């Protein structure tokens, strides 16, 4: 029942937000929900519930390894949201707060879903719940971003439903069973009909890959991340993509069990490297620092995908990277949101000299850029190093060098843009807006916490966390 509580608590928060009468105090629900979720997740970790055979929802090794990251992300973001919404009194926040809470509940559901259909429903619902978040700003550009997100995301999600059906039919053709829980599908294993499994894999990879933002299905990402508030970007880049990645991992496990693991790994590797190349090339050209974060996110989704293709070692590295990426991205998105508000723009000619306008956020951003481009001693360095080691252990030398080359290109692109944003003289128009924007503790502490967490992940990765990743990676591979 505990695993249900962690889903229901955010939903209760969402309902409370919808019913809350006072516009001014509604935002206080966010940290309450975040804290409740974190406490419940901690309780689940300390005292894991017994697995129920055939259950559609379960707190298994995979959710144990990932859900805490999402919970931590939301907790820190919720405190940021508290201060952020105070800065935006002109916008009604009823839908915004409710959608954020609903998103957390749906992400918890999708991470714990043990059933193909339930997984799809939760990811679909999470997609819909983020649409209001994306056009919170109500500008023409925000509307455009939301439209693209809905259209591309909706198409992706439709394809993943088709893929789910194909997988269901593979089981029906193979053994006549209609049990769509992952455990049952894995048990059927080689009895599944191979052609249908392959069709399902392609569709599900494209479908959930769209949600994850793998190239070439990533086109919604720069628009959505560029126009959404920083807190939404952080939650999308750290939470939504994680849920989609876990969905792909679970499907990969079934495909592996059906005996097509080689094909699955190869497609993941190719798609991952392609995403990294595309992202690295776009990073070299974009003039917008929020869109830059989006391309960086595409690149890191590529890293996750490459890691997932490299066996147990790679999976451990991927799960590590889920943590280090989402937490470092949190710091980047939140500080970038501050800079964006101070400068009134996120494009280079308009937004320069951020070190003078927002000294602390700019410094957090600079450190975050180094962290995300895998400079030691932050988390991403160690997780990416682990991916590289897994690649060399798996004998994928070519992939390894391509991987490193993309990282180098991305480093060049990110630092180039970051320093042209931070350096230089502030524009006059931005100067004028300094009176309106003041860096308060409420919007500075959350990104700093993220940065500290990233450092902590890198310097002193807790053993219990490593244990969780190892266990999850072992359950995600088919023994044999």
């Amino acid at each position, binding site marked *: 029942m505990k695993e249900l509580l962690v889903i229901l608590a955010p939903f209760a928060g969402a309902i409370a937000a919808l019913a809350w009468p006072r516009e001014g105090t509604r935002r206080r629900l966010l940290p309450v929900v975040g804290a409740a979720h974190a406490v419940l997740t901690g309780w689940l970790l300390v005292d894991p519930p017994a697995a129920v055979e055939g259950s559609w929802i379960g707190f298994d090794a995979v959710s144990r390894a990932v859900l805490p990251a999402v919970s931590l992300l939301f907790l820190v973001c919720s405190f940021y949201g508290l201060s952020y919404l105070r800065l935006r009194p002109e916008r009604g926040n009823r839908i915004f707060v409710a959608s954020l809470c609903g998103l957390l509940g749906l992400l918890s559901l999708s991470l714990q879903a043990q059933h193909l259909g339930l997984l799809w429903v939760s990811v679909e619902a999470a997609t819909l719940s983020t649409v209001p978040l994306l056009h919170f700003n109500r500008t*023409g550009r925000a509307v455009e*971003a939301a*439209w693209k997100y809905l259209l591309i995301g909706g*198409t992706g999600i439709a394809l993943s439903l*088709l893929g789910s*059906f*194909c997988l269901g039919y593979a089981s029906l053709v193979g053994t*006549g069973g209609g049990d769509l829980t992952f455990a049952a599908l894995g048990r059927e294993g080689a009895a599944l009909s191979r052609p249908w499994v392959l069709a399902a894999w392609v569709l599900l990879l494209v479908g959930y890959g769209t949600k994850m933002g793998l190239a070439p299905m990533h086109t919604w990402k720069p628009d959505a991340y560029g126009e959404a508030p920083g807190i939404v970007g952080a939650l999308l880049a750290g939470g939504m993509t994680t849920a989609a990645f876990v969905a792909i991992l679970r499907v990969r496990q079934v495909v592996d069990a059906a005996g097509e693991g080689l094909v699955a790994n190869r497609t993941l590797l190719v798609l991952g490297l392609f995403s990294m190349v595309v992202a690295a090339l776009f990073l070299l050209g974009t003039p917008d620092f929020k869109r830059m974060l989006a391309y960086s996110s595409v690149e890191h989704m590529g890293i996750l995908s490459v890691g997932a293709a490299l066996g147990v070692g790679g999976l451990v590295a991927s799960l590590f990277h889920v943590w280090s990426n989402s937490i470092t991205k949190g710091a980047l998105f939140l500080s970038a949101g501050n800079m964006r508000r101070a400068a009134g723009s996120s494009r280079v000619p308009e937004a320069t000299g951020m070190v003078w306008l927002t000294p602390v956020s700019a410094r957090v951003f600079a450190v975050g850029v180094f962290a995300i481009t895998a400079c030691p001693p932050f988390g991403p360095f160690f997780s990416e190093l682990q991916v590289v080691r897994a690649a060399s252990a798996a004998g994928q030398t070519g992939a390894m060098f391509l991987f490193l080359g993309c990282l180098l290109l991305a480093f060049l692109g990110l630092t180039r843009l970051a320093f042209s944003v931070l350096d230089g003289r502030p524009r006059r128009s931005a100067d004028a807006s300094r009176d309106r924007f003041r860096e308060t503790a409420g919007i500075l502490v959350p990104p700093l916490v993220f940065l500290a967490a990233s450092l902590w992940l890198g310097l002193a990765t807790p053993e219990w966390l490593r244990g969780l990743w190892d266990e999850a990676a072992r359950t995600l591979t088919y023994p044999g």
Partner: protein
Amino acid sequence: MSSNLNLLIGIAMGLNLVALASGRLPSLIRAAAMQGVVIGVLPLLMHSEFHWLVAAVSAGTVVVKGFVIPSLLQRALRAAHIDREMEPLIGFIPSLLLGAAASIGAIGFAGALPLRPEHAGVLLVPGAFATVVCGFLLLMGRTKAISQVCGYLLLENGIFLFGLLLIRSTPLIVEAGILLDLTVAVFVIGIIVDRIQREFDTLDTRKLTALRE
């Protein structure tokens, strides 16, 4: 029974092409609605014995896909004073030919996939794939928001067709999921369409090009 089924699926596949060839929004909406009705009737034909759940799915599909959503779209069309002519990105003849090629390809592709004995000789799989591809063509090849929604409807119809293969074996939650998601999706899309209209006084998504690399 199987030939009646195939006739209806064939009509649905024909309606794909009608949708691809129609140059005006009302006829596109009408084609999507007719397809919704046609595929909504299918579950009743698939099962010889009457089952209330199947009947409910069928009735729900016909009502939602055939009437509710098209009337919502038509209302949007009227309310927003949208120009009814479509300017396609992919021309009508190329998209028609592509759609026909997709239908033929789907039949060939479906032949390569193993089927359960009771589904052999039924056009469900090729019909589903063809409808999905035609939906994609509409999504990509048309500029107006409403025509993109119609493309999405076709996509959903194709997936529904495929879902009929599983209607007996898996609980109907998957089916219910579609209807739910469809209504919600179009609902949300409708709101956004409304917003786009207010922001831009047009429903031409080509004008949504501020965000470009």
